[in-house]
């Protein structure tokens, strides 16, 4: 399978490069990861170390398995029956595929920004407050201030501050993508998985998002695949 080979090769190269800059304690480590669907091997023997406080980029042609690798990292692969995953992904030394791992906690550690934005069927405010509420934040003042803070971070606050209570699904696609990033940031993830987050966006929205990733570099570890 040529695409598999490319994915494999590409990931291996990135690893050798990363090792060159010497990673003492990788925040995330992938060991011998294999993902198979019914009649195709999607990922083959992936080994990868992701350093702290840096942006790691996966490059590869479309269809080579970048999205699948990201979906493995927060176990969204659980949703697909046809995918057989084996190998290990370790975060802080713990394998995320082990039975004991709390899956909602894992996912809160990993912010995900997808290729296409999917705002939740709630207001703009509700979208950001949702993540806080399920984490157990009840204090209205804290929620209000966090909503404002994260909307400012993605440069959306000025555009939506007068209509926070309107449906998020009525925003433009660029605004939705920034909202989804803010929604991900609100749960304070340690790692941000971004799956070609700017591919559906206009140049200005793209710039805002990319700048945001540079800014986040020191706090979180963004992880950005983009197609070649």
């Amino acid at each position: 399978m040529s695409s598999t080979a490319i994915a494999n090769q590409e990931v291996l190269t990135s690893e050798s490069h990363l090792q060159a800059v010497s990673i003492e304690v990788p925040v995330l480590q992938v060991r011998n990861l294999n993902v198979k669907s019914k009649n195709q091997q999607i990922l083959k023997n992936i080994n990868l170390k992701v350093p702290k406080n840096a942006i790691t980029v996966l490059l590869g042609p479309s269809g080579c398995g970048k999205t699948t690798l990201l979906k493995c990292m927060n176990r969204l692969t659980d949703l697909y029956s046809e995918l057989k995953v084996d190998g290990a992904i370790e975060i802080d030394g713990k394998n995320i595929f082990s039975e004991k791992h709390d899956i909602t906690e894992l996912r809160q550690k990993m912010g995900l920004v997808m290729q296409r934005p999917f705002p939740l069927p709630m207001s703009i405010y509700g979208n950001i407050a949702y993540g806080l509420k399920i984490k157990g934040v009840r204090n209205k003042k804290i929620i209000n201030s966090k909503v404002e803070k994260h909307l400012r971070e993605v440069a959306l606050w000025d555009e939506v501050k007068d209509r926070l209570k309107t449906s998020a699904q009525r925003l433009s696609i660029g605004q939705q993508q920034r909202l989804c990033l803010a929604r991900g940031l609100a749960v304070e993830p340690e790692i941000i998985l971004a799956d070609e987050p700017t591919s559906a966006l206009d140049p200005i929205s793209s710039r805002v998002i990319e700048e945001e990733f540079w800014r986040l570099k020191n706090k979180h570890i963004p992880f950005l695949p983009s197609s070649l």
Partner: protein
Amino acid sequence: MTLRRKWEEKFFHVMSGIITLAIVFVLVHLIWSIVAKGASLLSWNIITQPPKGTFYFGGEGGGFLNAIAGSFYLAIGATVLAFVVSLPVALFLNIYLIKYQRLLIGIRFFLDVLWGIPSIVYGAFGFLILMYLGYRNSLGAGIVTVAALISPIMIRAMDEVLKTIPIGLQEAAYAIGSTKTETAFKVFFRQALPGLATAILLAFGRGIGDAASVLFTAGYTDNVPTKLSDPAATLPLTIFYQLQSPSEDMQNLAYTAAIILTFIVLCTSITARLLYRKK
């Protein structure tokens, strides 16, 4: 175009036109016949009073309030009960079982079979259980039987709505750390709300119009039921009994009941349509 293709085109064009007209004609004729026979007896009294002594001998004194109220009590009760069962099932199918596509196909097939079972079978089944438990015909028994009848319809209608929710939205909800229950009730439920309302109304429409399932279970009475253990009259059964009468006045009363029932079902379907379009 060759001659054959031209004829083929013309033939199917004319044919589908004729069939469409025929169906519209049947519908108009149906409504016309119940209106022609029943409209003259339609009055304020007939929808606001239960039947009195002379009602069954010429249509004077009282009306169908027993059946109208009974039908509403029964259909609303059954819809509520079916909703309590159907929503969790539909969400379960689309959230917990999303991984097991083959099992899902099996369950959906099974529900479609249940949908297809004639309502008299549900009636007979309800009657058996009633006998076994030693209860009489009652509103409560009717509600349970009709709920069993309309649950598969409601589940499948809700299921079809939930199926259209993109997997990306589900992933987005999980990615922020939602549990499955939170995804079900806070995300899927809201996203599908207009469609779910349509599903509920569809099931209600089916429930209120069904005669066979309540024949043995809810019974019939001239009174408006006041508790679950009272028997309850329903509009479909009113039509059924009145039509059996030898007197023509009585038969026309059946058509009046048919107008009321048709009107209720029509209003329900129109509301369902409007709700769905709003989405």
